[in-house]
């Protein structure tokens, strides 16, 4: 921590927030709000005179509220920057008549009641998001009565009670009577591994088992007479040196009972607590009294992580932690180029893993900085300003915020360096104003014309996304998993590139079956672009049904790059469906859709004509 404070190339903005992020990889423009701390940090020598005279005492959040601090305070003794700060919500007032005692005693004159928030603008090439975690609040778990019973504490409160620099200066006492507890119980998985889904989280928080093992060893070291009992589901001591530590704890006489207590009862007179649990190894019911119960609480995503997610265009996994670009091969990259993640923002992890991942994120960032330049994607979208009406639909579906819209001038444009080329905008635009570089409409129609010929009835026309389903088909090949040779694949970068017109055109040309395939939701290479695929397919099913075409003839499948087996199975299943499509059916479809297509072309011609006359009128107006 001190190293950060004194490093010449690290500028620290403490008590600050990222307010705005603009730009793109290599060229981010960031606005940071430096909140007023009312003490000039560069001048403060943390002499503590101010806090001594401050008349206000409030609960100290660093000590988990177990002791108090003043309204002007140092967050904790080793704080960096080593500067006091005024808690304006607690301060009696900056008016000297109200108080002003701290300002009177400050010899270095570094207290400034008039300090204002300040906005600092930065230009950076890369961003590392290490936004950390919050601790699960067990209040909602009625069975543990965390807020009702004095002697039920969380593992974070335990840290501050056992710490020499803690609320009780390391005297480990229980809250009800300030006596040293003799019988201490730990309850594991509080807020974690709950699959019922109502309270807490389904995932394992990763660190709580070892944290409790550590706590029992600390207790046995400081208070050799104390008795520790751990109630657990499984002890997960999987890391280097972890099993040794766990065994040491057992050798120290710590009792481990495999079973989670269903409830805690308090004796109102002694404030002692009785736990009842079924030992799932022996089948016996254990009922025991303790002086103190520690809830080993889990890790949750930081409450403000959605804000940063939005600022940096990140995505999250179902549990709320930031999602990596690839779970194995790009574990610290994100879908936004130039943005990296590490620490508990990515998933619950301990200090060692956080440090390891932070170094990995730094190395990835350094590689980019060191390269000095980034190649922009050559496969990008372009918007024809003449055709664009500035409706903004494209910007709404762009997963990378790469499109800017000027509603007044009725136009939109693509920021090339931010566009990743998924084609979602191209499939959304209903003015045909978007051209997808290297994957143009004309190229797709040429391919459809080539594949859907006089033998169309024997083929399954398939759109496969580059990253997953096309690669999944490759995987079927590499694994030699046979499927009928009726499949005809056309590659799209993302399934969201597939426009409704493409599908209708394929049917119009005589395809018995059209298959749209893409990545599983969690794998989408364009953050969440394939959610639009689903919406389009839903609309297409409705439309087909309305036109008297069986919606079953349009199939949708998610196939990952590793799912060669699934791809082959899908092709077998879809082939069965193809064989059920009759020649009469196809004939009817071709007829109906050809009529629809002609109507569409007529509509477009009319629109274009209107646009042209509007334009010439505009020109006259200008001249």
């Amino acid at each position, binding site marked *: 921590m001190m190293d950060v404070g004194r490093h010449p190339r690290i500028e620290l903005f403490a008590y600050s927030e990222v307010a705005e992020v603009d730009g793109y990889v290599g060229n981010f423009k960031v606005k940071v709000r430096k909140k007023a701390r009312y003490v000039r940090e560069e001048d403060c020598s943390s002499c503590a005179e101010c806090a001594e005279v401050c008349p206000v005492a409030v609960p100290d959040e660093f000590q988990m509220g177990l002791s108090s601090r003043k309204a002007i305070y140092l967050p904790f003794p080793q704080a960096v920057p080593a500067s006091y700060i005024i808690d304006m919500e607690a301060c009696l007032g900056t008016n000297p008549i109200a108080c002003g005692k701290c300002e009177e005693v400050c010899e270095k004159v570094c207290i400034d009641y008039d300090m204002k928030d300040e906005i600092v603008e930065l230009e950076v090439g890369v961003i590392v998001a290490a936004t950390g975690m919050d601790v699960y609040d067990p209040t909602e778990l009625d069975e543990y009565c965390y807020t009702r019973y004095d002697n039920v504490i969380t593992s974070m409160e335990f840290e501050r009670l056992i710490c020499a620099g803690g609320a009780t200066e390391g005297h480990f006492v229980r809250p009800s009577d300030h006596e040293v507890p003799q019988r201490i119980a730990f309850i594991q998985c509080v807020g974690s591994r709950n699959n019922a889904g109502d309270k807490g989280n389904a995932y394992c928080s990763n660190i709580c088992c070892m944290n409790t093992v550590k706590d029992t060893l600390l207790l046995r070291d400081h208070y050799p007479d104390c008795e520790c009992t751990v109630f657990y589901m499984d002890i997960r001591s999987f890391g280097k040196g972890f099993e040794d530590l766990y065994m040491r704890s057992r050798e120290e006489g710590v009792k481990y009972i495999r079973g989670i207590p269903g409830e805690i009862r308090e004796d109102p007179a002694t404030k002692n607590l009785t736990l009842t649990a079924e030992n799932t190894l022996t089948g016996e019911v254990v009922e025991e009294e303790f002086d103190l119960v520690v809830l080993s609480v889990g890790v949750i995503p930081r409450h403000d992580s959605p804000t940063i997610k939005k600022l940096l265009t990140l995505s999250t996994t179902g549990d709320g932690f930031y999602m990596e670009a690839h779970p194995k091969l790009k574990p610290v990259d994100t879908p936004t180029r130039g943005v990296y993640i590490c620490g508990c923002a990515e998933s619950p992890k301990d200090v060692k893993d956080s440090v390891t991942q932070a170094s990995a994120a730094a190395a990835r960032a350094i590689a980019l900085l060191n390269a000095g330049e980034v190649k922009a994607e050559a496969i990008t979208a372009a918007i024809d300003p003449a055709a664009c009406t500035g409706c903004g639909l494209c910007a709404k579906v762009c997963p990378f915020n790469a499109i800017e819209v000027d509603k007044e001038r009725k136009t939109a444009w693509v920021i090339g360096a931010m566009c990743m080329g998924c084609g979602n905008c191209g499939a959304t635009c209903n003015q045909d104003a978007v051209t997808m570089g290297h994957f143009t409409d004309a190229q797709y129609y040429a391919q459809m014309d080539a594949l859907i010929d006089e033998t169309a009835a024997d083929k399954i026309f398939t759109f496969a996304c580059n990253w997953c389903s096309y690669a999944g088909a490759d995987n079927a090949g590499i694994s030699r998993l046979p499927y009928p040779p009726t499949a005809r694949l056309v590659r799209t970068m993302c399934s969201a590139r597939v426009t409704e017109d493409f599908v209708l055109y394929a049917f119009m040309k005589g395809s018995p079956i059209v298959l749209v395939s893409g990545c*599983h*939701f*969690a794998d989408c290479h364009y953050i*969440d672009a394939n*959610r639009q695929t689903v*919406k389009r397919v*839903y*609309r297409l*099913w*409705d439309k087909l*049904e*309305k036109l008297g075409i069986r*919606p*079953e003839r*349009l*199939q*949708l*499948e*998610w196939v990952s790059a590793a799912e060669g087996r699934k791809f082959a199975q*899908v092709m077998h*299943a*879809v082939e069965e*469906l193809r064989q059920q499509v009759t020649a009469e059916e196809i004939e009817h479809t071709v007829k109906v859709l050809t009529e629809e297509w002609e109507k569409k072309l007529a509509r477009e011609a009319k629109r274009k004509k209107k646009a042209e006359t509007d334009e010439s009128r505009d020109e006259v107006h200008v001249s």
Partner: protein
Amino acid sequence: MSPETKFTCLRCGHEYVEEYAPDDDVERACPKCRSNSVRPEKVKKKADAAEEK
């Protein structure tokens, strides 16, 4: 809580009920044949209603 909606699998024809809202971020598959071609009834109804109008 999203309302319960009837889904029809367009591969095997299986019908089942699941919570569904247009913007929920859930990957769906038929519980019987695992196909992702599952169609919510709600969308269908809306289209029909629009047609009736």
